[in-house]
């Protein structure tokens, strides 16, 4: 598969995945574009891998976790959407449960959001998430646990099944 074929077929899905991981469509668009620019010149080597998309997705995750991106994303979030404050919680409880969840997910630290997205949206096993993120299984589980605790504590959500 050539790079052009890959982009033609997989770009919409990559953008959706990156948007879920980033919690921000504009950041996701920037990241996907930068990653594809980096991947294009070395596509011949990436293509030698069994699943080139997995490699590209790893690049997206790495890019989202980079210090530069974290700063940019935080600035963007602060401008576009102030962090949840105590006095706003009442209002948050009045909106639908999904909207509240969406807002809380966006406010999670990137590493926690990515773990939760990969686990629940991508339906990946924790071991695969660890491999993708280049960290240990214990790190994945602790990040997931912290993320779920935040979702529960802020939105008074019911516990979700954590064992995978």
């Amino acid at each position, binding site marked *: 598969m050539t790079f052009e074929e890959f982009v033609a077929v997989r770009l919409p899905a990559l953008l959706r995945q*990156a948007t879920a991981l980033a919690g921000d469509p504009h950041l996701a668009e920037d990241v996907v574009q930068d990653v594809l620019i980096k991947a294009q010149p070395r596509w011949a080597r990436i293509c030698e891998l069994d699943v080139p998309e997995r490699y590209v997705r790893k690049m997206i995750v790495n890019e989202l976790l980079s210090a530069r991106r974290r700063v940019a994303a935080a600035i963007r979030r602060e401008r576009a959407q102030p962090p949840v404050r105590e006095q706003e919680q009442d209002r948050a409880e009045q909106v639908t449960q999904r909207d509240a969840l969406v807002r809380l*997910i966006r406010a999670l630290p990137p590493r926690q959001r990515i773990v939760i997205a990969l686990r629940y949206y991508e339906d990946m096993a924790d071991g695969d998430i660890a491999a993708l993120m280049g960290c240990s299984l214990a790190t994945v589980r602790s990040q997931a646990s912290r993320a779920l605790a935040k979702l529960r504590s802020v939105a008074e959500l019911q516990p979700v099944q954590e064992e995978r």
Partner: protein
Amino acid sequence: MIDSEAIRAAFGAIADEAQSPERIRAGLATRARHHRQRRLVLRVAGAGVAVGAAGVGVWRLTREPETGFPEVAGGPGGGWLKVPLRYRPAWLPGGYGQYQRSIVVVGDRAPVVSLDWRRGTDASISLMIGWHDSLVRPEGRTETVDVHGVAGRLVQTESSGNAAYVTWQPPGGPQLIVAVLDEDAPGEQRATALRVARSVRPDQRETYVGPRLGWLPDDLAGRPWRLSQGYQGQQWIQEISATGAGERQLHLLMGPDAHKDLADHTTVLPVQLDGLAGWYAPDSRHLFLTLDDGVQVLLGLDAVDGQTEEPGQVPPELTRIIEALDHGPWPDMTWVGSR
């Protein structure tokens, strides 16, 4: 009741906000077109320095440039190899300024110099002075043209975007190539390329190759390599690139901000090398170091196929390249933005 389905639905709602892919598609198509055009004349040693971006550095120097020309804080210039420029165009269309220089180095000679001007983000004009067999000649619709009484060759390509190349060789001089890459119609592009070519005059100025590679693995030693000088923001940046066995790529980036935008600390090992602190990214085989004078260095070298490496250690060949590197003086950058 919140369960995994509710979380999945929430992520699905976020994913539904994804941007249309069209902007990225258009951006990649434009980049690819410009990239292919440059590659036609700047490819070195059969594998494409301009393509090979195991080369984040290549990506850096060929990414869409900013508009305008900054005051770049360079240095005194100089180096181990003096390179006469020999020629320059006396005419360029309005708005163009020089933004990059490239030198092909073979042993202790520099047979090729390429000077690059740009206007805005989509138009560039290059003058390549000299030739080396490792370069690739442009191909396309060809006609014979006259450049001050010398027969030249004008090539226009459309398959990778509009580009016009004029190649000729003044009596007793090196081969010269003017390349025009812009969005103009082929007729205008042809006229611009010819006018620039016919304006080319001798130039007594010179430039230098500052950095020197004291050691390279066998497959890279003796091969031609390319030094590119440019800038990012207001800081200079130099890149050395070369191609070795199996088309593996060597990239060495140097500059006060060379690590900017490239450093990813998520999967790196801190290292101390030759008294310098830095880190190593095993996945990409990139070594990041900061020199005593504040210059940041990024060295990337593809592994040889089948090569095994000690986990948690910088590959010895990278260590040896860095230890033998003479990074030279800070380059003179006063030419940035000039005609």
